[in-house]
């Protein structure tokens, strides 16, 4: 297994006390696979991806868990060891490419920095490899782009430069946190297609974090659905979308207006009643229980373990998983 996260729990110290941001998060990522993190704001999808990259804010406290990269626990490594992996074996791109690039340096300098730092390339090699990377990410006329500054690039082009930096050292894992959320749809499609192409060509694994189920459905092999800092359902993307087994996944899918476009006038969208729990005052049992239409008595009292359903290749954190055969109608 390339990357394995086991029982990861992370707290944040705040003025209102310690908040449990992640609870018992476990997942695996094999080589060449793409895994999607889905969830609403505060669900912990970004915290999980930042934890792998060890970029959490200083008020984060690790309560338990391990992050095994090629069998070694990242959390136990020294800063120097982590530095060697970060940006080289595990790379990351972010939502807003405009703020992720340094405005005072040229494209060539910023990509070159990665190459000298991690690969120790010589000056003439750096130029060559930078040009190669720029054309790999589909930037037209790479030679002319070397000396440009980030403000001269469009959003789509900046994200391409970010991707070029991320893949500069042929990473084994690329974490993309909402990589296309700030971009227009036509550009989003270009970037997602580029990520797919690079993944195949470089045999890279991809973690795609997004709030957009459509983006996740079309670009990942497996999906991990998160709610209130917990993983509620993991499974093959197609299977999860066609037959969600956790009530939250089902609710999330049903809410999408795109699925109800053929309904007659006067149709009201299904909703998930209530709101996400305050992480400082978590419900005792299942985190979704107060909002769940299927809840039983024990859901509100007992913490729910994750159930493994090997025949469906699914993991569900629910006492009463929905039947896998139950399809969401389009």
């Amino acid at each position, binding site marked *: 297994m390339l990357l394995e996260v086991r029982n990861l729990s992370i707290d944040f110290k705040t003025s209102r006390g310690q908040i449990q941001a992640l609870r018992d998060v476990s997942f695996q990522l094999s080589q060449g696979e793409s895994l999607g993190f889905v969830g609403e*704001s505060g669900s912990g999808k970004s915290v999980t991806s930042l934890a792998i990259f060890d970029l959490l804010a200083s008020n984060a406290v690790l309560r338990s868990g391990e992050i095994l990269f090629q069998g070694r626990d990242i959390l136990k490594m020294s800063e120097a060891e982590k530095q060697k992996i970060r940006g080289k074996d595990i790379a990351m791109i972010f939502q807003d490419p405009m703020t992720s690039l340094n405005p005072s340096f040229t494209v060539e300098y910023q990509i070159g920095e990665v190459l000298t730092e991690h690969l120790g390339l010589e000056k003439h090699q750096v130029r060559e490899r930078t040009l190669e990377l720029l054309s790999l990410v589909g930037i037209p006329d790479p030679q002319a782009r070397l000396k440009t500054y980030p403000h001269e690039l469009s959003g789509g082009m900046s994200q391409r430069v970010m991707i070029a930096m991320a893949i500069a050292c042929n990473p084994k894992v690329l974490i993309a946190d909402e990589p296309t959320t700030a971009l227009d749809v036509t*550009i989003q499609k270009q970037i997602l297609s580029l990520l797919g*192409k690079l993944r195949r060509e470089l045999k890279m694994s991809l973690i795609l974090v997004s709030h957009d189920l459509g983006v996740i459905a*079309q670009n990942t092999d497996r999906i991990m659905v998160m709610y209130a800092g917990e993983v509620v359902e993991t499974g093959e993307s197609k299977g999860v*979308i066609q037959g969600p087994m956790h009530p939250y996944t089902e609710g999330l899918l049903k809410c*999408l207006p795109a699925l109800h*476009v053929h309904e007659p006038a006067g149709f*009201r969208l299904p909703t998930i009643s209530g*709101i996400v729990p305050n992480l400082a005052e978590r419900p005792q049992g299942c985190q979704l229980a107060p909002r769940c239409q299927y809840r039983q008595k024990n859901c509100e009292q007992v913490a729910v373990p994750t159930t493994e359903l090997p025949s469906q290749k699914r993991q569900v954190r629910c006492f009463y998983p929905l039947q896998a055969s139950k399809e969401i109608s389009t």
Partner: protein
Amino acid sequence: MQPRLRLENLEKVYEIKSLFKPSAEIRALRGVSLELFPGETLAIVGESGCGKSTLAKLLMKIESISSGRAQVDGKDLSSLSQKELPQFVQMIFQDPYSSLNPRKRIGVSIAEPLVIQGQLTKEAIQKRVTEVATSVGLRPEILERYPHMLSGGQRQRVGIARALITAPRVMICDEPVSALDVSVQSQVINLLLDLQKETNMSYLFISHDLGVVRFIAHRVAVMYLGRIVELGTKEQIFTSARHPYTQLLLKSSPYLHETADFEDVPTGELPSPLKPPSGCAFRTRCPFANELCAEKAPDLRSYKGVHVACHHAEKIS
């Protein structure tokens, strides 16, 4: 039927002045004409820089109209004073948090448009605030709270209540659900639908999310670099789009149950609005473009019931 909103050849030109460079012009809106009828939702879709937000600013009189005419309920927009405007046009913003004053209680924020108008007594305003708050599903005790104490969905309800309180003829919704999580998004969409049913409200619904548009809109206008390139009913736009840009937009949207076709990804980006291409603005990204497109900008014309601005609409299916 008299339209609630009628725009005729609306133009907006921004002048970019610089000490060091010759001044330049951005034509943010070019010859925009449309009508919005009572009880109707007209969606405006398009990518950044297409002019959809400029349009909203002109209608709210945040920016002045360079040329052309805008009428609300038969009255010329330019004849309406800032005080009168909220009775005719109001707006719901994308980010409900940054559009609320963090130092004011929710009730005060909702009441503000009426206080500025100064026609009602304090008691009457109070009554109206409670009434409107209830209609958008806010409990009365929320009126005493501050914006930071509310969830995203509640804040957007406050934004809607504040826009609704002057009983406007036209509501401009600028990406009203884009900042919300899916489960909250559907609640707010339901609310907008309910309000429309009750009050026969007209929505000018600006959005980039075609899933939401396809659900909520009656008609759709597609914009590209300041122009409307296609305008038709929801069915026409989503099932038989004629303009190559509309087709590109539809093809680019991620859908749940369809495998993406990544073999045929169109290249190219939006040209700079400072130097738009000659003729048809979309020709640099268009698979059908020829010499005619470079020479002459296509007019918005009627073809098989839709309005489309393309020389090749007949050839495209």
